């Protein structure tokens, strides 16, 4: 797949993959796949040595505050996880990152600009990555 513009991105959210619908007024997302490293450095090693531990899945999404789209804000108080679908390119429907997540969010209202919303999430179960990842 060629490199595509971020304008083709999207974020969907629901209680599961089947109900996930577009989150409107969002214009960016990030996904962190940070793998912890376990140090196993021993005598006679010439430098520190590590082994990979468990991968952590977390990230964020942001855009403009829209009174017609309060799912993100409501999810911050949910006892059950939401299901997120992070799409880098809507023309490549199969290449998405998705899974259950708990969310937090923050709203910013500047006097000189449009109000924005910024959410962060942490995995609440196994995430699915595109084939080949």
């Amino acid at each position, binding site marked *: 797949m060629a490199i595509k*513009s971020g*304008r*083709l*991105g*999207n*974020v969907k959210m629901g209680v599961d993959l089947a109900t996930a619908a*577009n*989150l*409107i*007024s*969002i*214009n960016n997302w990030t996904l962190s796949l940070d793998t912890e490293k376990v140090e196993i450095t021993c005598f006679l090693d010439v430098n520190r040595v590590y082994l990979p531990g468990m991968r952590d899945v977390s990230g964020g999404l942001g*855009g*403009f505050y829209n009174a017609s789209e309060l799912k993100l804000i409501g999810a911050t108080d949910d006892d059950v996880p939401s299901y997120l679908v992070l799409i880098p390119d*809507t023309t490549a429907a199969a290449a998405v990152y998705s899974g259950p997540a708990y969310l937090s969010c923050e709203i910013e209202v500047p006097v*000189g600009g*449009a109000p924005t919303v910024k959410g962060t999430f942490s995995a609440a179960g196994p995430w699915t990555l595109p084939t080949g990842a």
Partner: protein
Amino acid sequence: MPDSTAIDEALRQVLARDAALLALMPDGVWFDAAKPGCKHYVLLTLVSEEDVATFPGRREYEDALYRIHAVALDTSADTAAAAANRIDALLENVALVVAGYSWMTTHREGRVRATPEDPVDPSVHWQVIGGQYRVQMAPVWGVQDGD
């Protein structure tokens, strides 16, 4: 489909239809350049414009900065100042109605004032008073636009 130039025209119409402003500036309201011979008029210029996008790849709102000022061939600044005050009363925090758009904000970001000499007759001067106005409008996308 939202038409961005409709915002320009709506802004001009708000000023052009006001009797109090026209009494001060009888030569009308013009975009970029007035017709020859005008001595008391209002001039609008689009200084800058930025479209801010959201997924799926279309603009969420249009952020425009207009320079709007009264121009008067006059030894006194009183008439131009009165017209600038009237412009401010008509625009500052007043909803702009444009088909296909939802209004977000209209506010002045800075004043404009100058007294340039006439390029033909340096013995006379123009009074230029007004401001730079920020206008933010959100397009309302319909079903036919893929919403």
